[in-house]
């Protein structure tokens, strides 16, 4: 038994009295909990007669998050059908764009949640949505980093640029502050002015920093040379251009040159008289202590990491990242000793330990959505070693199955789960077979959709079982036509026989057929079962008789009797029907009736006996005719 990674959370069941024992039963996505009769020694209070449903995942019931599930399902299905034979470069671009699609879906959801959280008047809703927003923010942060490190797999040089983009995307408050400052009367004298300038520098947005500094320079004409100097330094910082023809080594040389220049300025004390400019220069030199002084502006250790790399080691290689990451984390978190789960996940990502990332995310989140989709994408990029688990198949399939099983418990999203099961080669089919029969079928239309799903996957057992359920329901409500159409769908001969017997019973009791529109128009469905064929033919006999086409009617009746597809209970009726026909001179096959009536009496074929009996069974006026027939 594996050890538990984290302490399990405790959920209190309200309304369950103290000291009572609780029983429980696992459901597919939840637990049913009830009070048992067992009384402990200190049990008090009366029993509670409720059953409580404890659900772990509330997110699938949130109307806004539902959009996330639907849209990501669309992207997922698209991903599965990417052709295998594309060259790997094209595939990488496709995977990156799919990853961006997923992320934009997350962002769209986040924005909508944020809007509702801000505008709602109910505090509980606002808190709940606020929590969901922060979870989605974290998810997107992690996903973005995984995209940069694993999927895009940028080499040294571009790696830092991508990391810069990543940090900028997740630190939007700089722009807000900048807007505020710029809109004020005198931006250079705004109290947040220097914070904005420093933040720009920390994020490597040097153009914008320069534009802001121009405003300050205008106010201090005396210090013009200093501002000119810092402007030069800022403008001359080299940034690696991946598309250009400069190699990494050349860029490194250029960058060191520039770095030395910055250091010289510091040593010369060029900015000694202006504290702010000195700080900026120190940041440009990559001085860690100065960076750490601006923790509130950096606000996160990974921002610190990227800034530090930007100004001290921009040609960092992917394999070197984790050294810097670990040390930055330690340096940044001095007051809090324990890193949060998110920090650990990001650290694992910097260490390129994909499995650890997935594992930590699975524990931290209450919904399998994120890990399932991310793992699936990484698997397509061939980044996951086939890591076989103690049970089941590989990691990707396990996560997808868990996610889809959770979806299946939802009254509406079960249809999405079907596609996920389809793309789990080992166990998906089995899971689907077990789950699909439990979808409640209130209307015929829903049953048809479920049947179509089963048909497309050759799940004939389930087709039969669902059709039988619907046919029984129809039969119970006396909808014989519906029942027949369900048994035709399932090609269920036994049920078709049952329905035909109902019709025949009705006929026997009432003397006429009900639902003529059905029986008259059976078509090839008649061949589904013998009884059904008999029913169709018998009705045809009636029609022929009604149209006074006695010859054909008689022939038909004869063939019905000889074919022996009539149920025993009906033979009397057939014989009775034969009587008026016998009066017609054309009929010659009267003796066949005796074979039937012989069987009716349970004896093989004793003609004499039958004749005697026959005389009793059949009206007097006809026995003469029959004797005549027998003789001739």
């Amino acid at each position, binding site marked *: 038994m594996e050890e538990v990674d984290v302490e399990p959370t405790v959920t209190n069941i309200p309304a369950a009295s103290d000291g009572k024992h609780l029983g429980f039963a696992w459901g597919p996505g939840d637990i049913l909990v009830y009070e048992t009769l067992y009384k402990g020694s200190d049990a008090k209070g009366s029993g509670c007669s409720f059953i409580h449903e404890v659900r772990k995942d509330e997110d699938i019931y949130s109307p806004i998050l539902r959009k996330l599930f639907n849209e990501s399902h669309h992207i997922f299905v698209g991903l599965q059908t990417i052709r295998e034979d594309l060259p790997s470069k094209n595939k990488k671009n496709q995977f990156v764009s799919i990853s961006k699609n997923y992320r934009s879906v997350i962002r769209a959801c986040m924005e909508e949640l944020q809007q509702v959280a801000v505008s709602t008047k109910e505090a509980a809703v606002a808190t709940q949505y606020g929590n969901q927003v922060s979870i989605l923010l974290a998810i997107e942060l992690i996903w973005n980093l995984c995209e940069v490190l694993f999927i895009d797999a940028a080499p040294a040089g571009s790696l830092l640029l991508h990391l810069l983009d990543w940090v900028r995307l997740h630190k939007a408050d700089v722009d807000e502050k900048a807007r505020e400052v710029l809109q004020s009367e005198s931006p250079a004298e705004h109290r947040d002015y220097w914070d904005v300038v420093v933040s720009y520098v920390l994020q490597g947005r040097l153009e914008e920093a320069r534009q802001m500094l121009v405003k300050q320079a205008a106010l201090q004409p005396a210090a013009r040379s200093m501002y000119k100097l810092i402007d030069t330094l800022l403008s001359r910082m080299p940034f690696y251009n991946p598309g250009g023809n400069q190699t990494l080594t050349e860029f490194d040389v250029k960058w060191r040159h520039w770095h030395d220049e910055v250091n010289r300025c510091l040593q010369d004390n060029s900015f000694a008289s202006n504290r702010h400019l000195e700080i900026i220069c120190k940041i440009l030199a990559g001085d860690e202590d100065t960076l750490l002084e601006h923790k509130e502006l950096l606000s996160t250790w990974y921002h610190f990491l990227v800034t530090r790399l930007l100004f001290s080691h921009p040609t960092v290689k992917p394999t070197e990242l984790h050294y810097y990451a670990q040390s930055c984390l330690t340096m940044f978190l001095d007051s809090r000793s324990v890193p949060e789960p998110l920090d650990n996940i990001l650290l694992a990502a910097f260490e390129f330990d994909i499995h650890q990332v997935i594992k930590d995310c699975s524990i931290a989140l209450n919904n399998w959505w994120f890990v399932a989709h991310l793992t699936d994408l990484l698997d397509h990029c061939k980044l996951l070693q086939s890591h076989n688990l103690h049970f089941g198949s590989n990691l990707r399939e396990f996560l997808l199955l868990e996610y889809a099983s959770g979806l299946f418990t939802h*009254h509406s999203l079960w249809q999405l789960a079907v596609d996920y099961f389809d793309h789990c080669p080992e166990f998906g089919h089995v899971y689907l077979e077990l789950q699909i029969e439990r979808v409640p079928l209130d209307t*015929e239309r829903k049953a048809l*959709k479920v049947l179509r799903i089963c048909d497309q996957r050759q799940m004939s057992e389930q087709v039969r079982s669902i059709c039988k359920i619907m046919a029984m329901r129809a039969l119970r409500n006396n909808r*014989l036509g*519906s029942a027949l159409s369900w048994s*035709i769908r399932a090609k269920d001969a036994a049920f078709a026989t049952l329905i035909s017997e109902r019709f025949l019973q009705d006929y026997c009791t009432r003397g006429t057929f009900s639902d003529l*529109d059905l029986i008259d128009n059976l078509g090839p469905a008649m061949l589904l079962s013998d009884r059904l064929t008999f029913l169709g033919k018998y009705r045809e006999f009636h029609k022929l008789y009604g149209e006074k086409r006695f010859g054909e009617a008689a022939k038909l009746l004869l063939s019905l009797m000889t074919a022996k597809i009539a149920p025993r209970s009906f033979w009397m009726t057939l014989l009775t029907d034969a009587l008026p026909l016998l009066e017609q001179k054309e009929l010659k096959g009267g003796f066949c009736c005796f074979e039937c009536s012989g069987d009716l009496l349970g004896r093989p074929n004793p003609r004499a006996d039958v004749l005697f009996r026959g005389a009793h069974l059949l009206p007097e006026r006809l026995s003469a005719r029959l004797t005549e027939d027998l003789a001739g």
Partner: protein
Amino acid sequence: MENINAKYVSQKISKTRWRLVSHASLQQPDVFATGSWDNEVNKISFWSIGNHGSSDMDDGFEGDPQLLCEHKHDGDVLDLQFLDQDRIVTTSSTGAVTIFRLHQNSQTISVAQRWPRAHGFPCENAPCTGVVCSSPEIVTVGEDGKIIVFRADQEGVIRVIENADSSTIHAVTYLRTTEILTVNSIGQLKLWDFRQQSNAPSQILSLSGDRVPLHCVDRHPNQQHIVATGGQDGMLCVWDVRQGSTPFSLMEAHSAEMWEVRFHPTNPDHLFTCSEDGSLLHWETSTSSDMPSFLQGGRNNSMISRSAMAPAGGNQSLINAWLSGDSSKGRLETTHMLPSQTLSVNSLDVLGQCLVCGTDGEAIFVNRQVPV
């Protein structure tokens, strides 16, 4: 394909209909209604796409449907139709028929009238599967095989045809003002004449061969004898109800159930079908013989078509193009209108140049520049 916007709405859409626009104005429709199904709480909703005569579509968000108002609905919305500008009739899986009124000024919806157990079995509910109305008359059909006629402002039921069908009636449409046409799950079309007192159909038409359930029906807007149906096998059949009891032409359209078929109301050379297989097809036929072969761009499949019967002899030009159904001469073209791999498209409606459809993927697609 660029003209189609998807909007995710967190509910599976079972029916969608444009609000009627007056014929006099050349306005494009701006409001549509949707009904949901398979939710714990189902709703009917009204959406607006903003009617602009101008066609500057550079901004992608223009035309994104905005929710005007919504209302709870008891049970799945199985069918929905506008009675007039402000009222819609819905039918429910509980067997109820409801009229909702949209209050334009306050953008709210209220229940105007309700028949809670219009359709039903003795001991359980019977879903009411289809409705058609011609104000103030409303005709509904259901899984109980009944046809019921209501009037919008009267409490009770005007007429019930009990046991009209031994199987489920899936859809109904008007043929003439006093005649309706129903389709059922044993593949029959039945004509009912309300002027007659008897409870028997005046005519029954069906496909020879397998009794495939029919799910949808629509009448040609100008020629009242031409009717198109779609069924469980995804075949599109066009019938002439005056002639014979078998369809004129059969076309293989979809690979799964066809849920809705609609003739374009003002341009009936165009037909639209949608299906469980997630596709929405635009069929275009033409009577001229020298038509260019196939449309450029997009996904375009010319579907196989079989004529069940040669058109009755006589004047070729008078025979409606739909009844010939011969695509090998390039007279019938079909285009896919949705990006591939959507879940089932349950419903569509087309008016003017605007097409709206709803899917099981909880998305609504609106196309404002349908080439008709």
